[in-house]
């Protein structure tokens, strides 16, 4: 069971787009806090071994997997290779998130009229948006907002510098 819990935690941290707090892990795993702590420690120790390329770290907000620092050059080489420009659909999604933040995936999809899961993942990967919280609604879905990198790119000091939505024909 102990190794099952460790595997489960690995899967959860792998799939999560942000650090996962201990309490949330306890909740989702349905295990005692002590057990989860022990499994986290075991996972950290195992991943620390030479044969693994990722590691477990405790950062602000919880636990998260990272690639090991020594592989940074190759990781950058892999990722930097001509990442294509955002598609019009991705730019639209980003615009909706920028003006409507904090906003859930479902709310974005309601405005755009099409599924956006893939595009949201892309924007997360490019660090243009981030998870800023959870909505107090069934399922507690993630709320998305823009990142400092987003502001930086458009030369904005903060979000108040976005052109006001009332100028956007018909108001938001």
């Amino acid at each position, binding site marked *: 069971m102990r190794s099952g819990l460790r595997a489960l935690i690995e899967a959860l941290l*792998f799939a999560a*787009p*942000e650090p996962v707090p201990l309490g949330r892990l306890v909740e989702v795993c349905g295990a005692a806090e002590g057990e989860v702590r022990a499994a986290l420690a075991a996972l950290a120790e195992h991943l620390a071994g030479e044969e693994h390329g990722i590691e477990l770290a405790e950062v602000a907000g919880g636990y998260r997997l990272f690639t090991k620092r020594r592989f940074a050059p190759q990781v950058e080489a892999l990722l*930097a290779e001509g990442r294509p420009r955002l598609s019009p659909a991705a730019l639209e999604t980003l615009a909706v998130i920028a003006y409507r933040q904090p906003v859930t995936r479902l709310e974005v999809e309601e405005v755009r009229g099409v599924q956006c899961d893939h595009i949201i993942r892309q924007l997360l990967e490019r660090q243009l948006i981030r998870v800023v919280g959870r909505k107090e609604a069934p399922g507690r879905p993630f709320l998305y907002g823009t990142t400092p990198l987003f502001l930086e790119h458009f030369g904005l000091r903060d979000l108040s510098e976005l052109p006001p939505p009332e100028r956007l024909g018909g108001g938001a």
Partner: protein
Amino acid sequence: MEAFDEALAALERRLAGEEPEEPLDPALASAVAALGGDGPLDLERAVALLSVGVRLLERRARLLLPPEPGTRAAPPGEEEGAPGSAEELAGRLSEYRSFREAAELLRRYEELQAGRFPGGGGDAAAAGTGLEGLTLEDLVRAFQRVWEQSRPAAPQEIPREAITVEACMDAVLARLQSEGEVEFTALFEGQTTRRQVVVTFLALLELVRLGRVRVRQERAFAAIFVSLRRNEP
């Protein structure tokens, strides 16, 4: 109503064989959409549409039946035969069934794959944002575009009226069961919103398509009667 009259005329030309058979649903759908336009619902036009629609659907249904013994379905890929001929339609239908099967298979693959999640995005800062060359103006325009598109879409959302085609089909069947043959217009009595009327109308079309009800009309534009279709022993 001009749009509706045009749509109806097109359907009638098709019925008369003046226009090649084409997928039926879009043509009917545009007529139904035009019927549901502004202004009060025109029941007479609705009757005319039902009449034409029923006959087209019945003919289509006959064509979709398996070929009678002795006749030969067009071999796959062979495009000969008059457009809309029974052979071609039978070939099309079997082709369509194959793709339905393929879609089922894809569904199973999808189920399997949906149980596996990719990484949530590790530490991918290294890789550029994809925003290169895009300006704030591009972003604002993108929002404007999607915002404007989202508005006409809004009325298409199903209003929160507790009425569905399925529920309406059940109601029509129940009424026909208790009353036998009912005049078409009587099915709309007491309905106050255009949506109720359109949904009832769609329910009827669906029941006809499913072969659950029979529609009888002595001649064009005469009264239409609707009754349950008994299963032939």
